[in-house]
């Protein structure tokens, strides 16, 4: 933590030193004005770091929020003579309100549509600012915007205001940084990487999206206030669609998920047209082309490229670092744990469940009961509807008919987040880890539902927040250890298939669920890995977790399951112990086909 904060120090030092490096006179003042402008843009662009970089939501309304912030502040401070800091606070609050509104709409929209609605919001905002003469001064704008005073000293000079701006940028960076490293940061990332997996881990998509929008709007407002106060005059045409695109370009060009990258991007996009002025009539065209080139061909942004360059040089100078590919992934343990005996108290009851897609009846009237302490297995040929049962059960699909009762409560169609919070967690057939997060971070996200600290707690650095963060990390580490997995800091996307499975299981059990749903945990594993997997399931079972799994590997099934259900064509065709169902002729037929000659 301290070390990652220390990384920012050189940048802050640089920002503080810059004014002293500038030439004097009007040239210095020209650069200083551009720097102040860049800082105000950077603060607003940091909002996009949260919104786009962290949570993966697209907004082309950042200039609208920037403008609402700037205008609310200026109207209050200039027309209503409200004190500087009170006006600023009010501006942030009002803008955040709009952010909440947009975030609330966003839930119902897939990401592309969201981009569209934000454009609409942007354009309407610009028109209102322009036409609401009584409030905003219309196209004339508002002039004589004040600069702040601090401890009784009025800060009117550009130098003074520059340092205030740096301070606000540091504050904004702190907000973004704290958010990133808090429990909520994990939720934002999860949202970006995989909404379904996020909701299956107890993360409310609605609350998280609204949070992202609100924080982003608040930062835009802070930037807007700096802008207004820095340029002393605002008018509606500054806060237009192209400015929003510009903010977006700042985030993308610099590196969308990096605080330093976004700040650099803001500086670059602000200074670039100025630097290109020598091209006279051609400079805006050249600027357009440069944006295209960077956006298309440098997916990590310029800062990402820079970091990679630095990394390459370091490797060259210091020699190759161990990439850890051959590191031992599992710690083996030969001790066979004591497994609990299944009780006869039902934990999960599914009655006459049906799920139809268009003309296809994927599940058509399935009933089954899983008792506490069971390791139940659902088997059947590919396409028989097993995964669909699991998806309805965990709230990802809504049932066409039937009911699901868990622990005596009706949970049919509750939604994945609520179901997870009741203590049901799951893994997915095609593994839905968050690819850009490390193994450890993935598992820590699984602990989300056990956390309590919200945004305020995280930003105010409440001790409880740190404790929870530490606890989530410790729990995650502990769980991975428990499963014998040691490559904690490798990104999920770089793990081999079998190891990804283990990490996904760890993520599912880290919060201590009562019921664990596993969709083909052994698929794609070799014998050795399958053996490790059965060990792992024994250990999880020994903790008292009830399980329902889908599996094809019969030797694996025989070794772990206490009870089996067989499905074919969306219906249950057999149930009993694994041995019983495997000798059922109907099952043999379903699996191997019957013996009719064709050739």
């Amino acid at each position: 933590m301290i070390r990652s904060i220390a990384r920012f120090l050189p940048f802050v030092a640089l920002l503080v030193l810059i004014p002293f490096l500038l030439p004097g006179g009007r040239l210095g003042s020209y650069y200083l004005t551009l720097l102040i402008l860049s800082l105000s843009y950077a603060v607003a662009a940091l909002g996009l770091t949260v919104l786009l970089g962290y949570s993966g939501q697209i907004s082309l309304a950042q200039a609208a929020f920037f403008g609402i912030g700037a205008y609310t502040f200026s109207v209050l401070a200039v027309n209503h003579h409200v004190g500087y800091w009170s006006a600023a606070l009010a501006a942030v609050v009002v803008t955040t309100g709009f952010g909440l509104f947009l975030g609330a709409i966003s839930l119902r929209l897939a990401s592309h549509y969201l981009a569209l609605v934000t454009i609409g919001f942007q354009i309407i905002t610009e028109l209102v600012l322009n036409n609401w003469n009584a409030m905003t001064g219309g196209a004339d704008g508002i002039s004589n915007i004040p600069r702040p005073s601090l401890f009784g000293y009025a800060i009117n000079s550009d130098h003074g205001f520059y340092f205030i701006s740096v301070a606000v940028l540091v504050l904004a960076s702190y907000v973004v940084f704290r958010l990133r490293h808090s429990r909520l940061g994990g939720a934002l990332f999860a949202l970006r990487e995989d909404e379904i997996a996020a909701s299956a881990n107890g993360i409310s998509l609605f609350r998280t999206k609204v949070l992202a929008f609100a924080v982003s709007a608040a930062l835009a407002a802070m930037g807007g206030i700096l802008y207004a106060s820095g340029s002393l005059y605002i008018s509606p045409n500054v806060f237009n669609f192209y400015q929003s695109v510009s903010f977006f370009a700042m985030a993308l060009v610099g590196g969308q998920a990096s605080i330093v990258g976004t700040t650099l991007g803001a500086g670059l996009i602000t200074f670039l047209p100025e630097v290109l002025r020598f091209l006279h009539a051609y400079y805006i065209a050249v600027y357009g082309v440069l944006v295209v080139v960077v956006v298309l061909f440098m997916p990590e942004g310029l800062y990402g490229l820079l970091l990679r360059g630095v990394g390459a040089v370091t490797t060259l100078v210091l020699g190759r670092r161990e990439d850890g590919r051959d590191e031992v992934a599992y710690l083996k343990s030969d001790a066979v744990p004591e497994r609990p005996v299944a009780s006869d108290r039902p934990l999960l009851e599914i009655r006459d469940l049906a799920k139809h897609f268009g003309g296809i009846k994927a599940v058509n009237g399935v009933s089954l009961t899983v008792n506490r302490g069971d390791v139940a297995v659902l088997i059947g040929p590919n396409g028989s509807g097993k995964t669909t049962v699991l998806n309805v059960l965990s709230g990802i699909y809504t049932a066409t008919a039937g009911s699901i009762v868990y622990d005596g409560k009706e949970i049919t169609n509750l939604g994945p987040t609520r179901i997870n919070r009741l203590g049901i967690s799951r893994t997915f057939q095609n593994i839905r880890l968050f690819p850009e997060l490390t193994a450890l971070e993935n598992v820590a996200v699984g602990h989300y539902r056990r956390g309590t600290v919200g945004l305020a707690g995280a930003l105010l650095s409440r001790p409880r927040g740190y404790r929870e963060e530490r606890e989530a990390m410790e729990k995650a580490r502990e769980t991975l250890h428990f499963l014998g997995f040691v490559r904690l800091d490798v990104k999920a996307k770089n793990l081999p298939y079998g190891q990804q499975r283990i990490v996904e299981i760890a993520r599912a059990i880290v919060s201590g669920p009562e019921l664990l749903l596993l969709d083909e945990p052994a698929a794609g594993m070799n014998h050795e890995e399958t053996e490790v997997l059965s060990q792992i399931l024994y250990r999880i079972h020994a903790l008292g977790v009830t399980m329902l799994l889908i599996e094809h590997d019969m030797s694996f099934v025989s070794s772990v399951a206490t009870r089996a259900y067989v499905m074919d064509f969306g219906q249950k065709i057999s149930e009993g112990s694994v041995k019983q169902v495997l000798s059922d002729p109907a099952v043999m037929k379903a699996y191997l086909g019957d013996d009719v000659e064709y050739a």
Partner: protein
Amino acid sequence: MIGKLLGGAGMIALLCGAGVAHAASGTIEIGMIADLTGPAALSGQHKVDGAKLAVDEINAHGGIAGKKIKLIVEDDRGQNQAGVSAYQKLAANQNIVAIIGSIRSTIVQATLPYVARYKIPTMIGGTDPKLTHVGNQWVFRFRPNDTYASATMAQYAVKTMGSKNVAVLYDTDAFGAAGNALLKVALVKNGAKVVSDQGYTTATRDYTSFLEKVKSSGADTLATYMTNSEDEAQMLKQLRQLGLKVKIIGSTSIATSVCIQLAGPAVDDTYGVSDFVADGNDAAKAFTKRYVAKYNSQPDVFGGWVYDAMNVLSRVIAKDGTAPAAIQKGIRAVKGYHGVEGTYTFDTNGDGLHGYWVVKIKHRKVIPIKYVG
């Protein structure tokens, strides 16, 4: 205290040094911001053309006391922020002695704080009255402001055109919105009734809905306060196609070469106010002749006011030298200079012109009717 004195002495030495530097270079540099790119690049080009014409003429006559004028233009893209950057970029150049600012009131607004800070004489074309009424002693307006325009329009419409019920159509930008407010007051003061006032956003292309409302309001006269000549032309063409029978009087945008070129016959038989009339006076006639000879197109207000600004500036510099304070004083002292736009006499606010032409457009020619001062 002693340090301060020393600092002051250093500053003076530095300024003297700078003065020596451009004496040696043999040029006098004048900055200008203009729309080189963006939606109003056309007006930017006219502006550059007008300024260049003046510069070339002055240099051809031996410059100012043997020194040639060098014009340095920076693009403002028609945006406030870019306007400020362009202004600062020019101001940062220590050799620049004066700057020709924008014709757009909002860009002027945005640059005003920097004008005050740098104390560089700045000539502007924005006509929003308050630009020169905020106590900024370094701003000089080379066009008459909107109080004159609206008063002239209202007076002429009611007294001469016989308008009783007037519909107003205005751009909701700073120029149009301010003009609309002034115009309505002036119309009522002259005894007319405002039966409809409608604002549109810059670059609106379909005016059917506005014109239908003018029609249903029963107006006998349409008074327009439109910012862009392109929009004015567009509106006029559609008005003719809809067969609307109203008298028309417009703000300065109606009597520009752009409007006439684009609207064609649709602009005929309209009235307008203009601070620039091609054959309004001898200076304008001479200017128009040379402008047409050089660029093969009709000049308009965009070129006219900067031509005047450049010439006034060159006279002042020739008389008082290049020190900013001297130029400032010099411009303020200008009285009765006969320029293309009219006769300049600067008041204490920095307004140089105090009246408008009423013009009629007939057969795509601007015919001056009378000057209301």
